[in-house]
Structure formats: structure tokens, C-alpha cells
């Protein structure tokens, strides 16, 4: 089975510029997550989607970050304008709901490494 796809793999931008990342989850996975992984730290959840609805965006810096999943499949994460502290790896993950209402484990994509200069 194909894994979670992300693009681009690397991006370098100047501060105050905007950038967008794309994620295609595993087919059939209704739940999609975006994480931010700063160098030397574990990933931190930014936003969680269930189909095309937002379940949790409490940790998303909404003044500059936005995310959408319009058709409940692919998702984009945007930063506008970028700051130096946004330099990180942005990981996308997906999972699905099991019959009993629980979720299976999350499957992660390779990530997009963002460098803000």
C-alpha cells in the first residue's frame, strides 16, 4: 500500500515570505494530522482533520498558519508570513477509525524541511 506523500521535501524561503506544503494521505484514511518538528524535539501537533472538518487546531498559530482539506483527501498547510522560528520539519500523518470507534496507529509521511532565512 502506498504511504503518506508530501511535497516539496525541502523548501528555503526568506522571512516574511509565504509557503505551502501538500499532503496526500493513505487511501481510505479519514483522519489527517499536521505536525511541526523543530530540530532536537519531538513532533508537535498543529492541526487534526476528520474528513474535511477540523477536529483540533488549538496549537495552530492562526495569525500566520492555515490549513485546509477541502475534499477530505489531500491537505495543504500554509504559512504567511514566515518567521525564522518556523524553520522545522512539517510532518503529515493519517489514520482511520476502526469499527469500535477507536483509531489505528498514525502513519507518517517523509516530511517537508523548511528553512527560513
Amino acid at each position, binding site marked *: 500500500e502506498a504511504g*503518506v506523500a508530501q511535497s516539496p*521535501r525541502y523548501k528555503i524561503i526568506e522571512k516574511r515570505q509565504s509557503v505551502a506544503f501538500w499532503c496526500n494521505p493513505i487511501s481510505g484514511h479519514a483522519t489527517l494530522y499536521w505536525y511541526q518538528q523543530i530540530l*532536537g524535539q*519531538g513532533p508537535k*501537533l498543529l492541526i487534526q482533520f476528520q474528513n474535511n472538518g477540523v477536529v483540533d487546531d488549538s496549537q495552530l498559530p492562526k495569525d500566520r498558519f492555515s490549513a485546509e482539506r477541502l475534499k477530505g483527501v489531500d491537505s495543504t498547510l500554509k504559512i504567511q508570513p514566515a518567521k525564522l522560528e518556523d524553520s522545522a520539519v512539517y*510532518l503529515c500523518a493519517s489514520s482511520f477509525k476502526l469499527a469500535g470507534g477507536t483509531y489505528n496507529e498514525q*502513519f*507518517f509521511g517523509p516530511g517537508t524541511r523548511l528553512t527560513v532565512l
Partner: protein
Amino acid sequence: AQSVTQLDSHVSVSEGTPVLLRCNYSSSYSPSLFWYVQHPNKGLQLLLKYTSAATLVKGINGFEAEFKKSETSFHLTKPSAHMSDAAEYFCVKRSNDYKLSFGAGTTVTVRA
């Protein structure tokens, strides 16, 4: 307070010797716990998971972990390290609402 604490930021072992990566968690309930591995420029890959069944969990590539409730620990071990085990390892706790809390990670280097 840290939900998941990985006690070693860096572990260095010789090829063929045992590997031990230590993880402690805090939880008011019996959690689901995972170990993920991240090779350079690759995504996180699930090594193994504990979801309240057997306390000794076997994973891929010869890794295993033991859940010890009395010690609130979930240490990862492998009897014999291979060069390909060099990577970053994350201990992860999943809460009742299925949110993941990651430890800070342990970098493993394997000496030839």
C-alpha cells in the same frame, strides 16, 4: 509536566551489542504507548505498540519493549545492534482522545 520522558538524548553502541533506550511516561490511566524510529530524511516508522494486552511487546527488526506500570516505564531493547539501527527513536504516548505526545527523542549511533 512532561508526559513522556526519554532519559537519554544520545546512545552510542558497538555493532552486535545490546541497545537499551529508556522511556518513562506519566498518565492517570493505562495509556497506549508506541516507539517510532526516524531515519535521516525519512518519515517516522512504527516499531511497536502497547495497547493494554501483553506487557512484553515485540516489534519489527528485532526490537521489543516492556510495559511496567509500577515503574511507569516502556523501555526499548534490541539484543544485537546493527549499523542500520542508527537513527532517532521516539517514545510516544497516546491519550484517550487519540492525541500523541512525543518524547524529545534518542539519537542512536552504532560503531563498527
